[in-house]
């Protein structure tokens, strides 16, 4: 039974990693085919760094991801604190609204915002979708995830410490920054990271709300896949993958030490 399970897990791993292998392998193709390997070369990596469109959209992606992560973390953290202080139906109502963008299919969230933007921009002369609409859209789908990652930390927080600080004469604002924020910090940080990565990776919502001029990386990748496929995309994906892999290895090598300390 156990052997069977091991064989099965290996098969699923092959399934999960077969495309990854294909992408990495063909990024070193000296030919330009996505399916026929002609020989080893680094030419696609070289071309990647000469492609201004890709570099520019990577830059735009990072800017949108950083800004939307910061704004949604601020709004979401305050909201989580507010929601935590509510009771009864009010609390349920706020949580329900918060869950709408999580449960709704991405394409529905995307087109609903697109309708709003087209409608609202109709009142302005020459206004087009672009940086502004994209940033608003990203903040909107990030907020719920921040709320959901901060709320559990508030639930687990010892509220008496906050009241103790007040009793000892600490002004509420100071008690908030010195007592509450440090206790929920892990939730805020994981919300921020989640918002950043969701934004960086988003295709569907950006696709409908970015307009013609302001393209993030996933949009550029999509427009490149529609033309004859370009192996620069493989080189790009391989590089990004290598960066994430390296980050994960670093984090993972660090973690066991902490666990040992605790034990």
């Amino acid at each position, binding site marked *: 039974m156990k052997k069977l399970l091991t064989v099965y897990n290996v098969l699923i791993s092959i399934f999960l990693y077969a495309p990854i292998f294909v992408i990495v392998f063909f990024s070193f193709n000296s030919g330009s085919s996505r399916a026929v390997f002609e020989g080893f070369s680094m030419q696609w990596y070289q071309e990647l760094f000469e492609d201004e469109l890709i570099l520019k959209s990577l830059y735009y992606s990072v800017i949108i991801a950083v800004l939307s992560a910061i704004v949604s973390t601020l709004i979401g953290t305050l909201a989580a604190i507010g929601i935590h202080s509510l009771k009864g139906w009010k609390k349920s109502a706020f949580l329900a609204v918060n869950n709408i963008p999580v449960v709704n299919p991405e*394409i529905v969230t995307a087109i609903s915002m697109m309708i709003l933007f087209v409608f609202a921009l109709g009142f302005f002369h020459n206004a087009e979708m672009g940086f502004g609409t994209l940033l608003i859209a990203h*903040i909107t789908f990030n907020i719920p995830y921040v709320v959901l990652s901060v709320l559990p930390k508030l639930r687990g927080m010892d509220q008496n410490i906050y009241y103790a600080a007040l009793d000892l004469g600490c002004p509420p604002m100071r008690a908030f920054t010195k007592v509450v924020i440090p206790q929920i910090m892990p939730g805020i940080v994981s919300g921020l990271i989640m918002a950043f990565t969701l934004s960086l*990776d988003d295709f569907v919502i950006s696709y409908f709300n970015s307009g013609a001029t302001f393209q993030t990386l996933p949009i550029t990748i999509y427009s490149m896949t529609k033309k004859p496929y370009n192996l620069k995309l493989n080189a790009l994906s391989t590089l990004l993958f290598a960066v994430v892999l390296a980050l994960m290895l670093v984090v993972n090598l660090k973690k066991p030490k902490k666990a040992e300390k605790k034990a």
Partner: protein
Amino acid sequence: MSKGVTVGNKKANLFPFSSWMVLFVLVPIALVVYYAFTDVNGFTLSNLKWIVTYRNTLWLSIELALIATVICVLLAYPIAYSMSRASARVQRNATLFIMLPMWMNFLVRTYAWMTLLEDNGLINSALRAIFGMEFPGLHLINNHGAIVLGMVYNYLPYMILPIYTSLTKIGQSLIEAARDLGANGSQVFGRVILPMSVPGIISGITMVFIPSISTFIISKILGGGKDFLIGDLIEDYFLGNSGVVNYNIGAALSLVIMVMILAATFIMNHFDKDAQTSGGGVI
């Protein structure tokens, strides 16, 4: 339930959130409903007729998403189970291992499946090389199977992780107790482990079914564009890729998806509650 604690000014804390969510979540959804029931002449139900026109597309979307979801449950459970029984270190590494592919752009990964599945792709070439013969009838791409494969591939991690989480919450002592009381292996699984992992299965189902039923990219790349799913129709009506822009029809179709998912979530929650009460009964 934890008692509410008031930190700072309750209204001031909620103000940015409330105004943002009203403006960019609730108003847009109201606009979708408004567009679905109007055209240039005002109120109308004629947009909903398109649901009948596109009933085959709708059924196909539901069918393929359901098949993909069922396959995901079946594929994910054994993995999630073996992960939950492993040591803490293996568990952590396995979680990373499963999430890692999701860090590669999903369009590029889906294109890689094209490379694998094409008639002259890697799988067919490998089969030809191994068996030394042609398989002219073996078309792995541009069919429903390829679309389902794309869905399973892209969303399997979303099924594995919630099931795994729910399985780790089952205490070893509970399983030992069941064994002490005379349950054999399959009884322990069927009456303790499986019922207690239902919440994980359910959140996995929602996390696979919803993106599957509304996808428009997977069908485009792996379906060869001939089997449009509901997501493709919505995309076309909003962006006019096939020449017609009509927000009203697009909104009506979006409304259908929303209603279906609301209904599905409602049914799921019902099951979830059942599972929790019967789970409580077991304990």
